[in-house]
């Protein structure tokens, strides 16, 4: 991966002959925007977020994104309302399950981070930054077959494999050091400025938990019989106290960016979370039950009955071992193209491509427009395509000054405001000197 990344960097440099005519007039707000602020902030994890700013400073920031693929804010509010009114019925739950898209199952996830970064430039060509962050990942995937039992019924299908159902959570503390080297302009005054970034974060897990159904888990509901074979593999850190000696890991982040400042154009590739985190003292266990019966009543009774009941096999949770577990953080490649449309409008397109890992999100493309009617007061609006929610909307505003930074952004994912099936928010506050 690293070799391919460097290869792409070399290729881009070779192709970085001066682009077309200058798109941004010298006296426009765009032309006078601090070089570091031209890099539009991305959603989600971005280790180089503040390192590109050309001043020494201290930034605190926090953000979260979360959502699901089925229920909108209005749907959730309706469920809460019915529950508060004491009117929540089975039919309401079944109707809510009808909102789960056929074939995809019920998916929900959340990612949150908060922390601080300190950094700045050493001359024109080198910036160094240090970050300390707390991060959390969590999610639930319910196999579409499990949802299908109530959503679609048993008329056309009696076998419901539920082997891809899982839930997970990981909380970490991390400290990182990153650097960016800048070269250029290459070739001429209008040539590209090449930025090469890299760094590493030392990640300390605080809590880890994962429960997943075994692949051969399935439910069988037919007019003649009811059966279930459900196996669940569990792995979690059983000690609830927060401790910093629960393992560690180092993950690397890489950046390649080409800016054509006079043309108002930039290309960027960023690869994050390369590496694994080893979590110590993870208790691995399994739990399962088998039941097969010709009557639903027997299945229901057997759940409370002596496990020795014929046809019913409930096994106590068996602890396999306590071991060290390697977890791969969501490895993501982000490709960004930036262009100035005119003297006040900057356009960004970013594709977030999952390359594996344990908590990765599906491919998403962000289109962001940044409006600088006043140079230091950018207004941002955009669209998101993909991810778990489909189309989403983003908005943000900021104060991007020489000594002060404030940014607030929000996203409405999968719909607009009340129709959203997910949301994201982020706040950054920084001081430079």
């Amino acid at each position, binding site marked *: 991966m690293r070799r391919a990344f460097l290869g792409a960097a070399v290729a881009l440099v070779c192709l970085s002959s001066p682009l077309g005519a200058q798109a941004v007039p010298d006296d426009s707000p765009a032309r006078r925007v601090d070089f570091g602020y031209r890099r539009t902030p991305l959603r989600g994890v971005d280790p180089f977020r503040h390192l590109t700013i050309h001043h020494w400073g201290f930034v605190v*920031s*926090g*953000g*979260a994104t979360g959502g699901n693929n089925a229920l*909108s*804010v*209005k*749907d959730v*509010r*309706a*469920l809460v*309302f*019915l529950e508060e*009114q004491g*009117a929540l*019925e*089975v*039919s*309401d739950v*079944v*109707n*809510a*399950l*009808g*909102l*789960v898209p056929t074939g995809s199952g019920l998916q929900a996830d959340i990612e949150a981070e*908060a922390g601080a970064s300190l950094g700045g430039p050493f001359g024109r060509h080198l910036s160094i930054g240090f970050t300390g962050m707390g991060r959390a990942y969590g999610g639930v995937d319910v196999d579409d077959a499990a949802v299908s039992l*109530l*959503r*679609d*019924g*048993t*008329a056309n299908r009696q076998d419901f494999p539920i082997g891809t159902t899982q839930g997970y959570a990981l909380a970490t503390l991390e400290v990182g050091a990153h650097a960016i080297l800048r070269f250029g302009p290459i070739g001429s005054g209008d040539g590209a400025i090449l930025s090469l970034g890299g760094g590493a974060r030392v990640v300390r897990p605080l809590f880890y938990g994962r429960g997943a159904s075994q692949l051969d888990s399935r439910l069988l*509901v*037919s*007019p*003649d*019989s*009811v059966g279930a074979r459900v196996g669940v593999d569990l792995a979690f850190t059983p000690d609830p106290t927060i401790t910093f000696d629960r393992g560690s890991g180092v993950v690397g982040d890489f950046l390649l960016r080409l800016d054509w400042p006079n043309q108002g154009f930039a290309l960027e590739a960023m690869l994050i979370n390369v590496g694994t985190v080893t979590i110590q003292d993870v208790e691995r266990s399994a739990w399962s039950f088998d039941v097969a*019966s*010709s*009557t*639903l*009543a027997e299945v229901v009774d057997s759940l409370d009955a002596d496990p020795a009941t014929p046809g019913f096999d409930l096994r106590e949770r068996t602890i396999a071992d306590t071991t060290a577990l390697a977890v791969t953080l969501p490895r993501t490649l982000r490709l960004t193209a930036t262009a100035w449309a005119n003297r006040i409008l900057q356009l960004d397109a970013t594709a977030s491509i999952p390359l594996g890992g344990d908590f990765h999100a599906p491919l998403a493309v962000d289109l962001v427009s940044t409006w600088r009617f006043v140079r230091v007061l950018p207004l941002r609006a955009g669209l998101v395509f993909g991810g778990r929610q489909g189309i989403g909307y983003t908005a943000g505003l900021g104060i991007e000054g020489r000594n002060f930074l404030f940014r*607030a952004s*929000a996203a*409405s994912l999968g719909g607009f*405001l*009340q129709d*959203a099936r997910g*949301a994201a*928010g*982020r*706040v950054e*506050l920084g001081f430079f000197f």
Partner: protein
Amino acid sequence: MRIWQAAAVFAAGMAVMGCEPASITEARDQLRGGPARRVELAVPVARDTFAVQDVLTDLSGVQTTTLPSGVLGVPIAEDSVTFSTGGLIGGTVTAILDPAVLTFGVDATQELPTGALDLQGFEDAIRDGTIHTAPVTVAIVNTADAPVTLTGFTIGLVRIDPATGNPARDPGTGELVYETDGSVPIVAPLAAPGDTAVAVGRQTTTTVDLAAAPLVDRLADLLIDQVRTTIAIAGTLSIGDGTLGTVTGADEVLIRVAPVVGFDLTLPAGGVSFDSSLVENGLDLSADVAAELVAFLDSAAFDLAVTNATPFGVEATMAFVPSAVTGDVFQLPGRVEVAPLTVGAPSVAGDGTVVAPATADVAVALAGSDLGPFLGTEFTAGIRLRLLPPTGGRGALRATDWLAVRAGVRIVYRTGGAP
């Protein structure tokens, strides 16, 4: 609160602002945002085999007994008739007792109490059917220190004359007026088959088993129709055997009679119908919840696969009304009536016992709008059963007969499709 926390709360507030549903209906319509679907869920509910004896005892409350032939029967309460031997002789005597001299023509009656036969709903079947198996166990207790002989004794039935309150007697002859089949009195000889007399030793008890189907058939009919009836026993009683014996004034011959109604019946060709109704608890849902459930459910059906190894078939018709009511449910307005369900009778041998079970698949289907009676506090179910005879009409229900039922429920419900 830190600034980003405040911002997050602000953003969340903005997102949900104004989306509070105005009503439960609006909230439910919101959740119906998915595509309109009619979803069928079919699950097996029960699969069981029932022994007939258990069904009769546990479900109907009938106390049954198993006859030596294996046929099930229902005992009629035992009763007894007493002849005072001391009274016949005229006091206490210790002497050589000559039976040729000490011979008496006797008769006595004993009224059977109301409720002597408890059939728990099977009255119509017994009354309209013809009983083929009805054993009567007669125990004869002789308390005297002298043997006795009962010659030409019979057991019959005599109604209580409403005018006198006594067993009916012919006004001219004073003879007991027995129940008759046409003009022939229905009586059973009190003796072992082929014998005409029963000898009972000194201070002993002798038991005689009789086959008295016509007698018990009539007795059962009279008891079911609550006609005051007596058991009448008459014959010639001889005391002594030509040897020394003693009879005191307190001595007697006590005859205990224990009839059993056997479920070995010939039913009329059209079967036997009987109605019953019962009040059951409903789901006790509030009106709005019930309305929501009715709107949610498209239909519900019970599928029954029945294997019938009893000699009779059954046709069942059911009707339901909300709340507890009395009277004929089938006549009440607003009732929900289920189409008749029929499980045919299997093939039987000449003695009415099952040769091969019969199978039937039946379904009880209710539209969602028909579920109303079951959703309130209680409902009344009217059940009209027709017991169907096997080919030939005779069926003998044995303790080993069984009924296997495989039941499933199919629920079709509607989801999605918000208005």
